[in-house]
């Protein structure tokens, strides 16, 4: 058996053991069921919610917000990143400002977006696309900056047209770094969308969690939590697979 398969089996066993441990703790009342729902019951509720379409609808709404925010971030990020590479002085000047913005707790400014867009999905999309755009801008600029000049000289010596130069030299050279920015941006968007949905009580899966907590439906809270964790893990898995394909 391959080492990777063995490790995967062990990981599954660890997760299963954690589930069983929690289940036993709740069943035998080592933990008060007021605080902790039985994982099996929570999964049952999650499955019911998926089956009757409620969870699916909420997931679709969350995915719509993530997708729209990602689209906005990508368009703005690629454009701004290319611009900042093209105009080096501006690029150097704004690099520090962008990094400062990226490391500050901008998510706390969400009430401003609520005032501007109302308590709607648009507010979540606007704020999260801001988060997503920054790593894409920074990585796009870095990607173009680090294109090996020899590759461009080779292209020029082969009399490649501008379009051919972009298609055959620039794009393959910048794709991996830009994809890293894209991956970071998507991760931030995912975290912020789910977090904001919960805090602001707008939109999809996060709102469901908040709503269940408000009604003190402990089993539903855990069902929502499992759903959110599974969605996050699935997203990261897809991003990692896609990155591996791009880097190949």
């Amino acid at each position, binding site marked *: 058996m391959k080492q990777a398969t063995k490790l995967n089996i062990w990981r599954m066993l660890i997760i299963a053991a954690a589930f069983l441990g929690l289940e036993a703790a709740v069943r035998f009342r080592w933990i008060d069921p007021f605080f902790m729902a039985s994982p099996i019951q929570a999964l049952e509720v999650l499955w019911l919610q998926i089956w009757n379409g409620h969870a699916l609808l909420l997931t679709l709404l969350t995915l719509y917000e993530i997708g729209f925010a990602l689209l906005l971030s990508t368009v703005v990020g690629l454009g701004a990143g290319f611009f900042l590479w093209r105009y080096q002085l501006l690029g150097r*000047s704004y690099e520090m400002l962008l990094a400062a913005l990226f490391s500050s*707790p901008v998510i706390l400014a969400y009430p*401003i977006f609520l005032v501007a867009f109302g308590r709607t999905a648009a507010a979540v999309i606007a704020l999260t696309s801001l988060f997503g755009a920054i790593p894409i801008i920074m990585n796009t600029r870095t990607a173009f900056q680090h294109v090996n000049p020899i590759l461009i000289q080779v292209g020029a010596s082969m009399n490649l047209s501008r379009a051919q130069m972009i298609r055959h030299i620039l794009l393959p050279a910048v794709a991996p770094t830009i994809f890293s920015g894209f991956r970071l941006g998507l991760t931030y968007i995912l975290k912020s969308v789910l977090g904001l949905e*919960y*805090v602001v009580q707008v939109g999809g899966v996060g709102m469901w969690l908040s709503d269940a907590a408000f009604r003190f439906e402990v089993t539903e809270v855990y069902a929502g939590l499992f759903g959110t964790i599974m969605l996050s*893990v699935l997203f990261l898995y897809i991003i990692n697979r896609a990155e591996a394909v791009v880097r190949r």
Partner: protein
Amino acid sequence: MNVLARTIVTATPWVQTTAGIQLLSVLGLLFAWEFIGRTGLLFPELFPSFNSILQSLFTHVTTPMLIPHLKASLHAVGGGLFLGAFCGIPLGIVFGSRRTLMQLMEPLILYLAVVPKIIIFPIFILLLGIGTGSKLAVAAIAAFFPIVLLTIAGMREIRPVFLDVARTLGANKLQIAAKVYLPAITGYVFTGLRIGMGAAVTGALLAETKIAKAGLGFMIVEYYSQFRMPDMYSLLLFIFFLAAVANWALKRLFSLLLPLPRTAADAALYF
């Protein structure tokens, strides 16, 4: 207009420096904000004049009104960071000390790190109530992930030859820990602490905006619900300033203690 722009640029060469552009950009933004705020040209509710924001900031800083809220937030962030480090560093060392254990646990932790920590808040409310304890717990979970992951990264960077040399020289486990592991991972742990602090600030204050009795996040939402926009902006500015100063101070302190390894600084981008 072009001639005027060219004349300004030629007459003032500092405009063509990064510092010049940064200064001009910030001043331009402030000027535009003040203009929009005063004329009410665009969303008058959203853009109060910058002058009124500064006045509010002055009031906040010079009167004791913020102190109980600042205390509550600092308690949540500081306690959370301590708890995150208390669990994250030893676990990182344990997971990083065995190759198989590292390979087994690192992906699990990485996948869980992506989950927004604020969603665990309802469980902490059930367990700890709506006081500072539940915010501290969110901050601790938020800080834990970067700290444990960077500690594991530090452990991975230790070259096996160092361990072999230490063993050859007859060093016991404690001596190996003190003379090999600790110096090798310190840079990574410091970076983890700095990033963990940022995560703890965001986690605790975001939780305060959801439900709380005190704290800077609670104040933001209070001002928002009362539509006191200049006060809300001034408080946000205050928080961003505090976060930046704390980040800078930790970075400076750690760089004085030891130079950060490049890989650890790069890893910061992932959080």
